[in-house]
């Protein structure tokens, strides 16, 4: 294991994380202002996970995402124009405006889909990995899921097959401590989802999900292991969502305290990353600001693109629909 990380990789991870943050903050505002229809589950606070994992993947590698999927999609290369257009339900979106937030997919980027069904991703990722092994194409599938999804039968069935056939898949559990509004202690008897790996014959490890460098190091090992034919890994990233389950302020439920949220915000993954970039003289404060400024402009351009795009024509109602 070599843990040396290049400046280019650090800058790449930071850029991906900032892109997620600014996209999500704006999308959340647009939703709560009634400009984006439906529910958005925002990824703010969890950016280090997507950023740290995705720098190890090419467009050829596949991911499955969750209902909280924008961060995965952006970090995998999703463009703001098509992302916003999809949230706005416009025909220029990744799914021609018919998928919305929870069903964005793009095969060219290896995005096998966000998924509105909790636990919907693991069987798809396992199937993709089965195909990769069968075809000997050297691709890796990465399955993002949450602590809540780890209770679903679909996760256990997928993990069982992945372990049995030593498939090239990495199960990345984003344990943010809540299944929707239910604290983890009220929905499962364990705290470390990684403990479940042993039951499926794969290693399970825990990493600080607020630290992109830590995620990068652990994910690199897991992806290498998968790609070299050694089989799956369960990588549990301890993280936290800064916004509500849905939207920014959500429904104002009292399932967690403000103090708890503020405590986690002290370990904001982007601030932690930027402290390191400055400390190690990888980027200057001006260069960091430039990343934010450029990304903000791209966000505004994405919104403009979406708002100016047409809705799908009613005549296309039954096109691209599988039932």
């Amino acid at each position: 294991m070599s843990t040396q990380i290049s400046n280019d990789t650090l800058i790449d991870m930071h850029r991906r994380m900032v892109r997620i943050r600014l996209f999500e903050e704006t999308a959340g505002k647009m939703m709560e202002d009634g400009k984006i229809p439906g529910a958005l589950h925002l990824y703010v606070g969890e950016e280090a996970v997507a950023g740290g994992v995705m720098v190890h993947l090419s467009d050829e590698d596949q991911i499955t995402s969750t209902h909280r999927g924008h961060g995965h999609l952006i970090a995998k290369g999703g463009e703001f124009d098509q992302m916003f257009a999809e949230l706005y339900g416009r025909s220029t979106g990744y799914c021609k405006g018919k998928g919305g937030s929870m069903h964005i997919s793009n095969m060219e980027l290896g995005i096998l889909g966000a998924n509105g069904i909790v636990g919907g991703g693991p069987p798809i990722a396992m199937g993709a990995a089965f195909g990769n092994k069968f075809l000997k194409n050297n691709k890796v599938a990465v399955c993002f899921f949450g602590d809540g999804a780890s209770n679903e039968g679909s996760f256990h069935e997928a993990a069982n097959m992945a372990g049995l056939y030593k498939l090239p898949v990495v199960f990345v559990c984003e344990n943010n401590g809540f299944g929707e509004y239910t604290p983890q202690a009220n929905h499962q008897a364990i705290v470390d989802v990684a403990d479940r790996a042993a039951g499926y014959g794969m290693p399970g490890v825990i990493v600080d999900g607020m630290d992109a460098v830590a995620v990068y190091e652990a994910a690199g090992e897991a992806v290498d292991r998968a790609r070299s034919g050694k089989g799956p890994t369960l990588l549990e990233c301890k993280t936290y969502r800064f916004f509500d389950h849905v939207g920014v302020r959500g429904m104002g439920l009292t399932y967690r305290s403000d103090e708890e949220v503020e405590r986690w915000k002290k370990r904001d993954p982007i601030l932690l990353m930027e402290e390191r970039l400055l400390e190690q003289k990888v980027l200057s404060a001006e260069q960091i600001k430039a990343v934010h400024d450029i990304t903000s402009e791209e966000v505004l351009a994405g919104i403009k693109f979406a708002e100016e795009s047409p809705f799908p024509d009613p005549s296309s109602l039954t096109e691209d629909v599988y039932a």
Partner: protein
Amino acid sequence: MSLSKHAGATSNTGSAGSIGPVGIVANPASGKDVRRLVARASVFDNQEKQAIVGRAVIGAVAAGATEFVYLNDRHGIVANALAEHPHVNARSILEGDTMTALDTISAARAMKEAGCSVVMTLGGDGTNRAFTLGWPDAPLIPISTGTNNVFPNMGEATVAGAAAGIIASGLVSVAEVSRPHKLIEVSIDGERDDLALIDAVLTRERFVGARALLSPEQLAAILLTRADPASVGMAAVGGLIQPVKHSSSKALLLKLCGDNEAQAKHKIKAPIAPGLYTDLHIEDIDVIGLDKPVIWHGPGVLAFDGERERTLLPNQYATLKVTRNGPKVVRISKVMRKAAAKGCFVT
């Protein structure tokens, strides 16, 4: 069976210890980091840790312990184990809310304050390092559930618990069955102090990251309180060339030269983690006395007891010295032999 009836009888022998609660800290995070992936380190799930605490409590109660205090981690490892013993007088001394090493450090301070006669820790070298940060000269019975386990005992928890019970009952004093462990005291200019129990390492990596210390080509220097060829980790690196015992008033300092074979005085193959051997090039090796300062300059990362912990910037330096100011580690076999000699378990 409880042996507490013997406490008064032995108090006249001159070898009785102080009576106080038994402290228990079980680190929920031990045995789960990336070293399960990059090396072949043991996995300790929290059910197993709970079972270990349960066996230790049974042993302690059998030996006469009547009062326990514990760090109530969010996993409920100790609380769940104690729930099976409702007759035991036990209380949480701290709620482990941060889920970080801070919980262990704070619990150590609280246990010192509470006058614990002895503390059982479940974890590896890192867990015990954290405990020592809160209570440097604590009376400890460390039970291994970690990755690098040079410091803790690999023995059976039932017996470790019995030893704790005997000490907590005052039947045997900590002083007669322990010896203060060596400690690496670390000061970093401009920042808070730190410490290590077994090893301090300067690596030329840039980040703490996933903490595991597994890039041998980046290792620049190693300072050891113990160098043991029968161990795993940095203690083995030194131990395979120049063993230094726990009891010795010496420490071992190694300078490494990365991939530069020509500069190496020693080339060794050592297990730097469980199941992971690697070749290392040692430029120099020095046996040094206690209290002798060693200065390491940045840039780099300081690792303590097997985990990257602190970043040293280019203009920073750290001063390290090995002292004998560490925890009083109880020798379980010695406790049990003394207990047997006193007939403590004879009914």
